[in-house]
């Protein structure tokens, strides 16, 4: 296997999976976050606790769920609680270390829009809405975001604040009385980003293998800052790639019904 025998999408998922540890209690959004969390569990973090908002705690699915409430999640969970309990005792109760979210629109301060494109009352495109995200964003210890880069998705100003990240940056969270850290990590198909400690603007800290600064800027709607000590994301290992691909294959087979 040569160094570029993987897709940007695979690199994104694997880079995200590496950020998770055995000690994490992770509130998992569907899609890319779910894949990353389960790759982590199947590789270096077998004891990670994965929680889906359907109430499944400590779930260890063999295939990725299509929805957040697939039967597989419950069958392989330590326990399954009601949805009010999930949001009250486990999320609002402060027991989640990492909330892992995707985004339709994102700005450089980690604010997320999954509600509407255009005006809320007369939308150009009505998106699904926030679901659990508004309170995942405020109640989880910290937030990881993962999404594919595009100028439509990564914008200077989002159309709607579905989930609050760092607002206008700086200490905006604290000023609203939010005690959690908010977005501390953004993993895209091209790079790893972390917020500047002062301004909270996302800064590229690591480029994925073969990706240039220009690639990142061309697919991002804001003017990108790069860290002084910019790194290169290590290639996926064979084990990581094989784990991810086997998971996707099992998933495709299961969902084709």
């Amino acid at each position, binding site marked *: 296997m040569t160094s570029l025998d993987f897709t940007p999408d695979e690199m994104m998922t694997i880079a995200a999976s590496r950020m998770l540890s055995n000690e994490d209690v992770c509130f998992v959004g569907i899609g890319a976050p779910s894949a990353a969390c389960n790759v982590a569990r199947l590789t270096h973090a077998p004891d990670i606790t994965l929680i889906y908002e359907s109430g499944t705690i400590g779930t260890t699915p063999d295939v990725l769920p299509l929805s957040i*409430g697939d039967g597989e999640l419950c069958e392989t969970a330590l326990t399954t609680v009601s949805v*009010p309990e999930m949001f*009250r005792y486990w999320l609002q109760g402060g027991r989640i270390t990492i909330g892992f979210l995707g985004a339709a629109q994102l700005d450089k301060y980690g604010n997320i829009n999954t509600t509407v494109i255009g005006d809320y009352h007369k939308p150009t*495109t009505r998106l699904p809405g926030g679901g659990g995200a508004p*309170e995942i964003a405020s109640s989880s210890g910290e937030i990881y975001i993962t999404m594919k880069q595009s100028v439509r998705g990564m914008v200077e100003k989002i159309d709607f*604040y579905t989930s609050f990240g760092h607002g206008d940056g700086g200490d*905006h969270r604290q000023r609203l*009385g939010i005690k959690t850290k908010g977005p501390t990590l953004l993993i895209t198909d091209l790079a790893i980003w972390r917020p500047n400690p002062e301004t909270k603007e996302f800064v590229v800290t690591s480029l994925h293998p073969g990706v240039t600064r220009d690639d990142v800027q061309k697919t991002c709607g804001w003017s990108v800052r790069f860290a002084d000590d910019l790194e290169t994301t290590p290639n996926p290992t064979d084990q990581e790639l094989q784990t991810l691909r086997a998971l996707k294959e099992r998933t495709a087979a299961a969902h084709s019904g």
Partner: protein
Amino acid sequence: MTLFCSLHDAVADNLKDGDTAAFEGFTHLIPHAAAHEAIRQGRKDLTLIRMTPDLIYDQMVGMGMVEKLIFSYVGNPGVGLLRRTRDAIENGWPRTIKIEEHSHAAMANAYEAGASGLPCAVFRGYLGAGLKDVNSNIRSLTCPFTGEELAAVPSIRPDVTFIHAHRADRKGNVLIEGIIGIQKEAVLAANRAVVTVEQIVDDLDTHANACVLPHWSLSAVCEVPGGAHPSYTHGIYDRDNAAYLEWDKISADHDSFLAWMKTNVLDASPEDLEARVSRLRKVK
């Protein structure tokens, strides 16, 4: 015992034009059979409440039965957008609908408050979120001990809630297992509650702390095997993920939507659902 009846009668007796209704199910146990019966009976001007409106609300919206939708995630889970609902919101087809949008945490708390007989739910939520600015039912109150400002939303009190469940015993006590979601709260928050079950049995035969609804908390219980399809009943048949993927195509335009509704809902009956789940049944 008049609790047991046909699904036709349960819907006719408990769902009226203009009602505020919840057909709840959190991916699991979605009461498709009950919603399809409501569509066949042509109820209109409904206010529909649900955390995760999915196919059944997309169908009811597309059939023009819905005046208002109260929700927190209006997607086809894991697939994408709900095209009929989107069409109604963006283009007013087949009619304009009002929406009241919340977060999951708000709706879960609002059902819990409804089940608890309270006028409102109090939680830590909507911090920095945009919904506060577009929904006047998101308010706040102040903790009288710490001064912290907390979010408040009205409790949910439907006229009627429909759910699907695993089993009822012969008195009408109902068991729900697996992803229990918001089902118990949705039933206890409502004035009336209708439950479709896979099977009526002599004994629920379950754990002391299982999710059980006593018969006296329910208005009607109907045996409808397969009544959740293409959602699932944990341990009995699997989720028909392929049907959820197909819905994305069926619902893409008016003609294919209306044709599908005629064949699969308007000209169908509750008895048809059992056949639809046969290939999804768990081998014991």
